[in-house]
């Protein structure tokens, strides 16, 4: 790699002494910073994440401790600003603690699927015809299931629980990530600089690390962030069906299900957990849109 660095020095001597060129990621960061909507979405997300992390300090009550005398208090009750649920637990505290599980169950499938799907997609994109067909045809089969159906079927079979929710959603998200990564990899692979690296006898792992990966990661990142919103909605949906997080834990989908019985008594309180899901997934979708336009990524369909 030393000679490539030397070539770059020769090719761009004035850059080395003059003003440093703005790197790709700094350009992207600059564009994002000027995009008010994306910045706002990011700030709200940061606040939600911080509230979830520091839940013990942000919460005003124990999220699991009910109070039988103060069940289903309306929004604005002194001491229970967002009201209480059907067993008298404080809604604000449960929402704050619920953010921990909801964010964890929504983010980790996308993260896991990005890693696994990314590796499989790189293999399929860089490997020979046989490896490519093997990986892509298996993906096709999983693609043949509507995502909600597949997630519910897997969770329904292996049982409820946090780990099973994450597992089932990871399985659902792997095929689309493999497809996107494979397609991006093949695009980059046919470019001249990869040919040049190969001609200069760079080993395969070096080509993947220095030529392929840096050009594929951006697209993967944009695609992965666009899945987080869906992932949060789906994981809360699994809990809503009783197939995800189990009671009495605080989780937004589970809270929504439990409060369904209360829509005739305290409709506003019953709708609140959904508001938390909407705000979070909306912010992730806006962030993903902002990243997409800032990075000027065109994803293969």
């Amino acid at each position, binding site marked *: 790699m030393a000679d490539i660095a030397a070539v770059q020095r020769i090719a761009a001597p004035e850059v080395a002494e003059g003003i440093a060129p703005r790197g790709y990621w700094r350009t992207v960061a600059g564009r994002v910073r000027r995009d008010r909507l994306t910045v706002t979405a990011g700030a709200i997300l940061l606040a939600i994440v911080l509230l979830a992390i520091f839940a013990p300090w942000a919460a005003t009550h124990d999220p699991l401790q009910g109070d039988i005398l103060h069940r289903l208090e309306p929004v604005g009750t002194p001491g229970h600003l967002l009201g209480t649920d059907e067993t008298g637990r404080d809604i604000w505290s449960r929402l704050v603690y619920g953010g921990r599980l909801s964010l964890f169950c929504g983010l980790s499938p996308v993260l896991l699927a990005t890693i696994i799907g990314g590796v499989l997609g790189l293999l399929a994109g860089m490997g020979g015809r046989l490896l490519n067909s093997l990986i892509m045809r298996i993906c096709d*089969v*999983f693609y043949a*299931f509507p995502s909600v159906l597949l997630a519910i079927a897997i969770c329904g079979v292996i049982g409820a629980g946090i780990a099973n929710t994450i597992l089932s959603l990871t399985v659902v998200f792997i095929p689309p990530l493999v497809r996107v990564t494979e397609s991006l990899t093949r695009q980059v692979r046919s470019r001249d600089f990869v040919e040049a690296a190969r001609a200069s006898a760079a080993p395969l792992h070096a080509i993947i690390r220095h030529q392929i990966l840096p050009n594929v990661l951006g697209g993967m990142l944009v695609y992965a962030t666009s899945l987080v919103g869906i992932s949060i909605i789906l994981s809360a949906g699994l809990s809503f069906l009783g197939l995800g997080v189990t009671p009495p834990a605080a989780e937004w989908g589970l809270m929504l299900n439990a409060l369904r019985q209360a829509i005739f008594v305290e409709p506003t309180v019953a709708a609140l957990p959904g508001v938390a*899901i909407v705000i979070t997934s*909306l912010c992730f979708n806006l962030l993903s849109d902002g990243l997409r336009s800032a990075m000027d990524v065109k994803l293969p369909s």
Partner: protein
Amino acid sequence: MARFLAARLLHTVLILFGVSVVAFGLIHMIPGNPLDILLPPEAPKSLVDHLRAEFGFDRPLYVQYLAWLGRVFRGNLGTSIFTGREVTRELLRALGNTLVIAVPAAVLAFGLGTTLGTVAAFNYGKPLDKLISVLVILGLSVPHYWLGIVLVIVFAVEWNVLPAAGMGGSGGLPTSWHDLSFLVLPVATLSMIPIGVIGRMVRSTVLEILGNDFPTALRAKGLRSRHVVFHVLKNAAPPTVAVMGLQLGYLLGGSILVETVFNWPGSGQLMDLAIFRRDVPVLQGTVLVLAAFFVLINLVVDIVQALIDPRMRR
């Protein structure tokens, strides 16, 4: 075109085979004996063995798979462990009920989605475009099961103008205004996500086409703007058809959450019951049929796309 058709058909058959393997294999990951749910723990061993043999659970997995596949080809999905009724009949009735809400939802979403997307694209950058874009991204960010609850709160609890749940009548196609009123909230809820997805897709596709030279050329030669719109939409049709097909499949497979909210006796509710009753034949049959539906819709979409756009016939 014939070659394209042959290749697509072969591909579909292979995918369907893979789907059947996954559907069968997945359901057999259920821990324990599928009959445990039916029999008390103190059931005599002779009865357990007899029932196991009757349902075929004593045979090796690949034999069970082949026997199941053979029966599936004859349209027999087995009998429910829980109710003892034929799975095929139960499933067809449930699927019919799901179509009663999925088809209107699809029509509504296709109409509204394409209209919103086109209007937004032709008003690119104007307040109308921004308003539609906000609505569309909101549609993608709202959990539909929550929207269902909110609609029930507003229209059934607060205003009391529409029924909160159930199907009214005796199932099947609605026969009266009263039956029809039960459709309104589930259809509205179900159509939200596809409206968002289609609206977003149509907007970006139309924008891309407007970036070509030919719309400008058409305008330059004096064509009226509605004729230009027609030419642009014709070019936007193939990808739109593809997304619509996918969305119809999602409506069928993903209606389970909405059916739970509205207590709608469709395929989603059947699957939900099968999961909680650990009813292997029903679960297997439902997953297989819904996935097969999805695969066939994709086949139809591919053929339609090839018919309207010769470039797709590769």
